[in-house]
């Protein structure tokens, strides 16, 4: 709550709105006990007194009534009516929305068609029609305003409810014996309540304005009762001669509506979770670089990460997502990076081309050497030229690279033309070629498909085709087959393997599956808590892991053909990278841990073409896994 207020008041406009609104509300509450003259007493002799006249701070109106007193009482009434209308509209609208969204199917269909019909009428016309039917009067105006705002709430709340009604916790509640009504009240409602409050805070201002509008037309509050709209309406005739009678209520309406809307927007933004993580601004096009050490000299390898460190700064926490990673890959080689979620695999991959979201991400040390140039120090223009051209990415979800509204062929053509001029016809022919290269049957026809017309495996092949479009030197594939079925996975892996042999591609393949690594990768790096714990050629590492984590992780994963059995587990959880322990990060879960493991830095020590970050690799290597 305190954090919420802090966020809210960081927004100056919202703070201004809050102050103005509180002041107005305070006055409205205090009105009955303030020493004000009766707002409805007429004194024809004192007509149209200007402001600051004796005894009339803001002057008088056309009947000689005290304007200040009328303004106070009028504000009070307008606020009350607006709030009442908002409550009624929110209650009825949300009820309709929740029922429609929760029941779904035919009920939803019928309800929402009716709501649509209501919305199709011009807003103010509908309100006028309702007042005309009910007769003029403030209460009827209130109902009219509430009624025209019901569809807004119904639509919004229905949208939120539909999302919730399909959540698994609703099914779980059913299986726990709750009835539909109980589920709506105890499971759904607590989750939509914040949305209702936000919707109210952003609409109550308009409802005050609408009631004022009806009163202005003489359909709302009836004389002599004052509300802001009727005050304006009555002052209309004297607009030229005595402008203050119009200006006073006009300014008040303006202040109220503005302050409510500013505050409402502020509340909406403050509740937005993205704000909390500090990611208020849009991420920069390239990751911020703030290196605290001099970068190492570029290497001869095609692509090499040299002691790369990437951090996230959120609030006062520092997450060391990548804590000094060195890797290299050359032409025709496939390097696997394996590790659990949160171990820093994806951030490592994204750091290569400066794709880590910034803020909060930051590269704080090391270098990425590509063809002898340091990419970490490179300008955004240089990076943009290389992205998708020399170094291409494939992600787990193909839909994150494919735009849903464009044909896959056009997207391929665009990817090519972004980097070199190419006549349309040639580009199209090449797009078909690419689809054939990724073994999409009937490519000439498929090139005109939209992504949603393809299956998941087919889409992933299109994103591989996108990655290949400019004949890159390196492809970085981040769990490209995790979301796919095994039969499709086998095809995609085979395809990548063939492509790398045919085109001498270098591939960095991120996965959490040892089977995939074994089949595809020449070398493998095992990551834990942002660092590489073991690295080297695939076969020796899988045959004889020397880091306890590698060994345990392999034992956790059952392999097909082993029959029914107990599985090995690693006790505990990986450490949070904002609170890494001293010494070895794996020590709390390691059966070989000694006192020395918990002190100082444990280095990644090379031994031939392998390297391991452990003090007792020999012991590990000689011990059988037990659980």
């Amino acid at each position: 709550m305190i954090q919420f207020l802090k966020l809210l008041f960081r927004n100056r406009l919202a703070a201004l709105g809050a102050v103005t609104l509180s002041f107005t509300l305070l006055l409205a509450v205090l009105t009955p006990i303030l020493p004000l003259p009766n707002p409805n007493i007429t004194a024809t002799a004192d007509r149209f007194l200007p402001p600051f006249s004796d005894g009339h701070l803001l002057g008088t109106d056309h009947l000689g009534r005290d304007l200040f007193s009328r303004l106070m009482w009028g504000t009070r009434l307008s606020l009350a009516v607006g709030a009442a209308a908002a409550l009624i509209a929110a209650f009825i609208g949300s009820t309709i929305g929740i029922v429609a969204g929760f029941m779904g199917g035919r009920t939803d269909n019928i309800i929402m068609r009716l709501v649509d019909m209501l919305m199709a009428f011009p807003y103010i016309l509908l309100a006028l029609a309702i007042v005309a039917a009910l007769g003029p009067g403030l209460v009827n105006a209130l109902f009219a305003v509430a009624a025209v705002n019901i569809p807004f709430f119904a639509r919004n709340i229905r949208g939120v409810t539909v999302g919730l009604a399909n959540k698994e916790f609703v099914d779980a509640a059913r299986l726990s014996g709750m009835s539909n009504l109980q589920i709506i009240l105890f499971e759904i409602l607590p989750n939509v309540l914040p949305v209702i409050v936000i919707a109210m805070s952003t609409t109550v201002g308009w409802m005050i304005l609408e009631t004022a509008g009806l009163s202005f037309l003489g359909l709302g509050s009836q004389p002599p009762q004052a509300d802001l709209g009727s005050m304006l309406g009555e002052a209309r005739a004297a607009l030229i001669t005595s402008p203050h009678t119009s200006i006073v209520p006009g300014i008040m309406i303006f202040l109220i509506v503005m302050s409510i809307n500013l505050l409402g927007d502020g509340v909406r933004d403050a509740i937005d979770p993205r704000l909390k993580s500090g990611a208020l601004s849009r991420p920069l096009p390239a990751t911020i670089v703030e290196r605290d050490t001099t970068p190492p000299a570029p290497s001869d390898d095609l692509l090499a990460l040299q002691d790369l460190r990437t951090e996230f700064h959120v609030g006062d926490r520092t997450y060391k997502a990548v804590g000094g990673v060195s890797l290299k890959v050359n032409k025709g080689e496939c390097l696997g990076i394996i590790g659990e979620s949160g171990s820093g695999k994806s951030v490592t991959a994204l750091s290569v081309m400066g794709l880590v979201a910034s803020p909060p991400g930051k590269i704080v040390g090391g270098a990425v050497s590509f063809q002898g140039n340091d990419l970490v120090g490179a300008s955004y223009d240089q990076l943009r030229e290389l992205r998708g051209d020399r170094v291409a990415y494939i992600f787990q979800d193909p839909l994150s690279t494919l735009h849903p509204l464009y044909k896959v062929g056009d997207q391929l053509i665009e990817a090519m033309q972004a980097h070199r001029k190419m006549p349309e016809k040639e580009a199209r022919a090449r797009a078909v070629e690419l689809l054939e290269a990724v073994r999409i049957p009937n490519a000439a026809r498929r090139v005109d498909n939209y992504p949603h017309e393809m299956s998941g495996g087919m889409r992933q092949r299109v994103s591989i085709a996108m990655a290949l479009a400019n004949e890159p030197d390196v492809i970085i594939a981040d769990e490209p087959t995790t979301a796919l079925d095994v039969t499709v996975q086998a095809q995609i892996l085979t395809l990548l393997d063939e492509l790398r042999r045919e085109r001498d591609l270098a591939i960095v393949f991120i996965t959490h599956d040892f089977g995939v690594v074994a089949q595809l990768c020449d070398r493998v790096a095992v990551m834990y808590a942002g660092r590489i714990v073991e690295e080297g050629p695939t076969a020796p590492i899988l045959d004889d892991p020397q880091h306890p984590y590698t060994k345990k992780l392999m034992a956790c994963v059952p392999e097909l053909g082993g029959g029914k059995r107990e599985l090995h587990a690693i006790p505990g959880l990986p450490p949070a990278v904002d609170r890494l322990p001293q010494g070895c990060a794996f020590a709390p879960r390691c059966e070989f841990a000694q006192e020395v493991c918990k002190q100082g830095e444990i280095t990644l020590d090379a031994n031939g073409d392998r390297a391991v970050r452990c003090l007792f690799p020999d012991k590990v290597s000689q011990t059988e896994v037990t659980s």
Partner: protein
Amino acid sequence: MNALEVKNLTKTFEVGKSLFTKGQGVKAVRGMSFDVRDGETLGIVGESGCGKSTLARMLVGLLPPSEGEIQIEGKVQDKASPREFGQMIQYVFQDPISSLNPRKTIREIMETPLKRLHGMSKAERNKRISEIFASVNLREEFLSRYPHEFSGGQAQRIGIARALAAAARILILDEPVSALDVSVQAQVLNLLADLKKEFGLTYLFISHDLAVVEAVSDRVMVLYFGAIVEVGPADAIFKNAKHPYTKLLADSAPVVGRALEAPKQKADELPDPLNPPTGCPFAKRCIYATDICETTDPALIEMGDDHFAACHNPIKG
């Protein structure tokens, strides 16, 4: 006795239905019949869209079947009612976090089945929750916290604890570990094995990971296009597959020490549910297909010891 008996279970969804027009029927589950024996773990595998979740949701009463019969512990269930089913059969969901209401404390979540299904008093509930938390290795201090404060593995334990609270003896585990990290997967799978022993539970274990299914199941059932294509003992079904589709699955799984090669198939497209084929739904992809496969959908018949497959040209061996 069988924990669960399913006869000719069918689910047809209507797609493209609007207020005025009748939709077209799509069969997500096409007449499945099978038994689940008391105390066994029956693994269910198949590719996405093959009907695994639809089947599971019918079995717990969340979805009314279009045809067919479900018998739980000898009792025929003629009306889909999660409330009635819930005392006999429970569901553990794939996404542990989204299966817990973010606005409720863990205690409130745990209390619901005890209160609504069993009408327990406050004191009874507290005692029962303590017992269950002890068996799933969760600390009682967690009870006052909210779901977002937990890791995936902990949240899944809470999901399992809730299923146990309903005191059902059959659990449907729908991809219970696929959202978890490998090092945590094993913790949860071993916990499930211990609970099964402790409470004499029966499991239906749905997963796309063949190796995991093989490691935890007594028998495995392979689904394709809404039907059972093969069912048999876990230690034989992948090693000794009778159905070409099972063999394709087994050969596709990445295994350390096996060369990378996509197993042969003629095409890789699934049949169109709006336009189902007349013969074997696998015929378009099957390298063993013969003429009869195009015209006649094969029935599930016994082909070995407790081993059934639906194929005209089963694999020998």
